[in-house]
C-alpha cells in the first residue's frame, strides 16, 4: 500500500515538472568523429515561453535542435521533450512537437493547398477537424486566395509562414524553429514574430534559434551558445546584469580602428568592439573613465566627436561573454 502511494507521488512530481518545463536538457553532447559540435549543454525551457537559442554560425544551434527533435542521437547526456526521453521515446517526442528546419522545407512543385493536405495527412488529420485546421493555417499565413499557387511561386515571407502552418497543423504543444527568419525581409520578420508571440500566448512553447539580436531581445529566456558550449542563460535583463561591473561607452571619432587599438592597451578597459561607424568600449567601474578615454584619444591626436555612456545592449553582453570565453580558453591552453 505504501509502495503504491510512493509510486503515485512520484508520478505527480513528474507530472508537475512536465507541467513546468517543456524541454529539459542535461549535459547534452554531440560529437561528429573527434569534433564536438555540442558540448555538455544543460538548460530548461518553461512551458509557454519563447526560448531563444542564440549563437554565431557553427555554434551548434541546429545540432542541438536536431537532437531535441529526435533527428540525431546524442553522444552523451539526456534530454526530455514534453516529458519524453529524446533517445528512448523519439516516436512520442515526434508526435508532440512541430519542427521547422533551417531551410523551410516545402514541396516546391505542390500548391499551397497540396502541401497542407500532405502534411495534414502525414499527421493523421482528417474530416472536419482537418478542414478547420487547413482554413486556420491558410488564414494565419495570409494565403487566402493563393491556395492553388505553387509553393515555388511564393515569396520568402509567405513560404516561411506556410512552412510554419504546415508544421503546426497537428497543434503541437512545443514548437522548434531553426532560424525561421533567415533571408527574409524585415517586415516579414516582424510579421513572423507576431505569429510566434500569438502561439506563445496560447500556451505553445517556442524554442527558436536566431542570429538576430533584436529577435533575441524579444525572447523570455535566452541561451547563448558558442563553440558548442552554452555560455549563458537568462532573460535579456538578467544577462545584461552580467555587465554591471562595467561601464559601456559609445565613441564617435576620426580613426576608430586606431582608437580601439589604443584603448585596448589600457589597464582599465575590458573590451572594444565596432558598432557601425562608432565603437563601444567597456571599462571597469572606476571613477572618471569617460575623461580617461578622451585624454588617451587626444594625446594621440584623434579627434573625438562624441563619447557617451550607454545602457548595454544584448550585443554588448554577447561580445563581452564570447571574449571572456575565448580568454578563458586561451588561459587553459597556456596552463
Amino acid at each position, binding site marked *: 500500500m505504501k509502495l503504491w502511494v510512493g509510486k503515485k507521488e512520484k508520478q505527480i512530481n513528474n507530472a508537475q515538472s512536465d507541467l513546468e518545463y517543456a524541454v529539459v536538457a542535461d549535459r547534452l553532447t554531440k560529437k561528429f568523429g573527434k569534433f564536438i559540435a555540442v558540448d555538455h549543454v544543460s538548460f530548461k525551457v518553461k512551458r509557454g515561453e519563447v526560448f531563444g537559442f542564440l549563437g554565431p554560425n557553427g555554434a551548434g544551434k541546429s545540432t542541438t535542435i536536431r537532437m531535441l527533435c529526435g533527428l540525431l542521437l546524442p553522444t552523451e547526456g539526456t534530454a526530455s521533450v514534453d516529458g519524453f526521453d529524446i533517445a528512448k521515446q*523519439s516516436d512520442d517526442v515526434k508526435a508532440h512537437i512541430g519542427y521547422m*528546419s533551417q531551410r523551410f522545407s516545402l514541396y516546391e512543385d505542390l500548391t499551397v493547398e*497540396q502541401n497542407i493536405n500532405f502534411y495534414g*495527412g*502525414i499527421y493523421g488529420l482528417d474530416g472536419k477537424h482537418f478542414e478547420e485546421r487547413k482554413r486556420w493555417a491558410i488564414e494565419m499565413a495570409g494565403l487566402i486566395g493563393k491556395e492553388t499557387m505553387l509553393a515555388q511561386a511564393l515569396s520568402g515571407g509567405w513560404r516561411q509562414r506556410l512552412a510554419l502552418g504546415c508544421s503546426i497543423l497537428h497543434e503541437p504543444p512545443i514548437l522548434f524553429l531553426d532560424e525561421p527568419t533567415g533571408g527574409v525581409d524585415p517586415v516579414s520578420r516582424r510579421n513572423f514574430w507576431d505569429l510566434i508571440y500569438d502561439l506563445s500566448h496560447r500556451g505553445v512553447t517556442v524554442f527558436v534559434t536566431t542570429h538576430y539580436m533584436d529577435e533575441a531581445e524579444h525572447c523570455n529566456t535566452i541561451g547563448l551558445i558558442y563553440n558548442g558550449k552554452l555560455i549563458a542563460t537568462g532573460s535579456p535583463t538578467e544577462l545584461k546584469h552580467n555587465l554591471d561591473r562595467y561601464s559601456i561607452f559609445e565613441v564617435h571619432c576620426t580613426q576608430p580602428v586606431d582608437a580601439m587599438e589604443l584603448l585596448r592597451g589600457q589597464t582599465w578597459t575590458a573590451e572594444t568592439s565596432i558598432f557601425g561607424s562608432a565603437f563601444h568600449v567597456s571599462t571597469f567601474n572606476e571613477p572618471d573613465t569617460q575623461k580617461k578615454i578622451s585624454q588617451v584619444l587626444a594625446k594621440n591626436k584623434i579627434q573625438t566627436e562624441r563619447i557617451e555612456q550607454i545602457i548595454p545592449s544584448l550585443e554588448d553582453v554577447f561580445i563581452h561573454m564570447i571574449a571572456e570565453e575565448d580568454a578563458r580558453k586561451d588561459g587553459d591552453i597556456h596552463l
Partner: protein
Amino acid sequence: MNIIFHIIKKEFIQFRQDKKMFIVSFFAPVFQLLILGYAATFDVSKIPMAVCDFDNSPSSRTLIRNFTSTEYFRVVGYYDKTSEIDNQLDDGHASIAVVIPRGFEKKMGAGQSAPLQVIADGTETSSATIGLNYAFVIVSRYSQNIVLESLIKRGSVMMPARLSTEFRIWYNPDLKSRNFMVPGVLGLLLMVMTMILTSLAIVKEKELGTLEQLVVTPIKPYQLIIGKLAPFFVIGVIDVILVVFFASVVFSLPVKGGVLLLLGLSLIFLMTTLGLGLFISTISRTQQQAMMTAIFFFMMPMVFFSGFVFPIENMPTIIQYISYLIPLRYYFVIVRGLFLKGVGMSILWTQALALLIFGSVILSLSVMRFQKRLG
C-alpha cells in the same frame, strides 16, 4: 496505411506535374525499344565479297554460287590476282574475300582435303565474325554434299538418302539479333527506370530538406519507404506492359512463355532494382552523386557482366563468378527464355529464386541503412 496512401498520392501529384519525368518514364522506354530494335541490330546482310577463282572449274563455280545464292553475300568483282583482292579489302570495297586455289576440283576428286582461303576485314570485327561464320556454314554444307555425292557414286551408300544438312539456329531461326536485343532492352530499361529514378526521388527530398521534415513527423520508416517505392513499382510494371505490347505489335515478337509469367517474374526483378535504388539513396547526398553512383558503380558493371554485350561464357572465370552477383544476369535468362524459347517455370525457377534471394537481401540491407540514417 493512410499515411502510406498520402505519400503515394503526393508522389503521383508531383509525377503528374513533372512533364519531363512523365516522358522519361513512359516515352523513353518505347523510343529506346524501337531504336535499339530497328537500328542497333548486329545483323549482317549483303556483305561485299571479292572472289579470286584460280581453279575455274565446275566445282569452284558451284561453291561460289552457294555464296551468292544467299542474301548474306554480294559479289563485288572477280579477280585473278591476290594483290587485287588485297586492294579491294584495303579500300573497303569488299569486307570478305574468297580465294580458291588451282587444283581445288582435282584434289576434291581424289578425296584429298582441298584448301580454301576466306579473308575477312578484321577492322569491323562483329560483321567480320558473322561473315566468317556464314562462310563457314556455306562451305561445310558444300563439302558435306560433295562427300555425300562421292559416297553415293562409289556405291558405299546404297540408299540415295536425302540427308538434310540444313544448318539450323535454334530459338532465333532468322539469326536476327533484334530478337535477341528486344528482350535484353526490357531488362536494361527496367533497371534504369526503377533503380535510377527511385534513388533520385529519395535523394531529391534529402537535398530539399523535406526528408528531414518528414522524419520529425510520427511517420514510420517502413511507411516512408513503401510510399516512396510504390510509384516506381507501378511505373516498372507499366513499362513491362508497354515493352511487351510494342515487341509483339512492331517486331512480331510475342512472349512465347506467357505474359503473366513474365510480369510475375518482372515483379521479383523490380524488387532487386528498387532495393538497389534505395541503397544508392542511402549512400548519396546529392542527386548528381546518386546519378553517378548508379551509372558507374551499378549500371555499367551490370550491363557488361550480365551477358547483354558479351556472352558470359566468353568471360574470364573470375568475372563469370562475379556475374552471379548481378541480378540482370538472371533476368536476361528469364526474358530471353520467355520471349524466344517459350520455356516455363520448371526451367526458370532457379533464376527466379536467385532474384528473390538477391532482392530480399538488398532490400532489407537498404531498409536497415535507411532507418539507421534517419534514427
